[in-house]
């Protein structure tokens, strides 16, 4: 079993990039891999708590919480989050916040890295 680091830099609602990242993370965990998920840029939207669940919009809080219980490690870029008004006080429980070096640190011993940039 290996380690997969996913970096997702795109936004939550509309583009399905974060939806894709979360589903892929789930599939990798199910196969016994360790998974780190780094969200940066607009992708930090994932880390904000109390997003309302509407059927017209992606709603990832529930699947992310379930995957964190299975071991998914989610970290948001602190500066990208702060610039958007997402602070420690309104971050989803269990999601960590670090500076960008965390992502590089995660890639150090990753067997595979999937960096979702493309916006």
């Amino acid at each position, binding site marked *: 079993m290996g380690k997969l680091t996913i970096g997702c830099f795109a936004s939550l609602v509309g583009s399905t990039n974060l939806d894709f990242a979360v589903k892929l993370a789930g599939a990798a965990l199910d196969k016994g891999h360790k998974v780190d998920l780094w969200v940066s840029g607009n992708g930090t939207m994932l880390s904000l708590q109390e997003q309302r669940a509407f059927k017209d919009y992606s709603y990832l809080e529930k699947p992310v919480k379930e995957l964190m219980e299975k071991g998914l490690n989610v970290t948001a870029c602190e500066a990208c989050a702060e610039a958007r008004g997402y602070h420690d006080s309104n971050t989803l429980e269990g999601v960590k916040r670090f500076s960008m070096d*965390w992502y*590089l640190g995660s*890639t150090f011993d990753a067997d595979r890295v999937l960096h979702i940039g493309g916006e």
Partner: protein
Amino acid sequence: MATTKLGFIVQRPGYKSENPKLALTHAIASQSVEIYLDDDDEVTCDVAFVGEGVLNCIKDQKALDNYQFNSTESHVKMGLLCDLNIFICREDLEKYGMSESDIVLNAEEMGGDMDVKVVPYEEITKMMEEMKHLLFF
């Protein structure tokens, strides 16, 4: 002691998305990654601008004057100041009618020693082969 090499490939112009800037800020973060690693382990980052990505390297970007945020140019200079290898594809510069006189070449005025490396695409391919992981922006 082990080194993990990352290759950052910037394929798009800036200002439409912040990804080209985030490529540089993340690559620069390799300077402080040791807090997450064992002694002597390291992560190094090379950055390459290809395709329309070379438009990020045009000099005299006045983003701060007009929109009150730092230009992508200033991020390229910060990368040089942090001694990153920054490659710019020569064929793509030519494709978009530019020469070395149109782009950021160094960060001399900030005390940087490194120059950007304007290289044939083949060199960038070689860089990509050498890296452990690739990150396309």
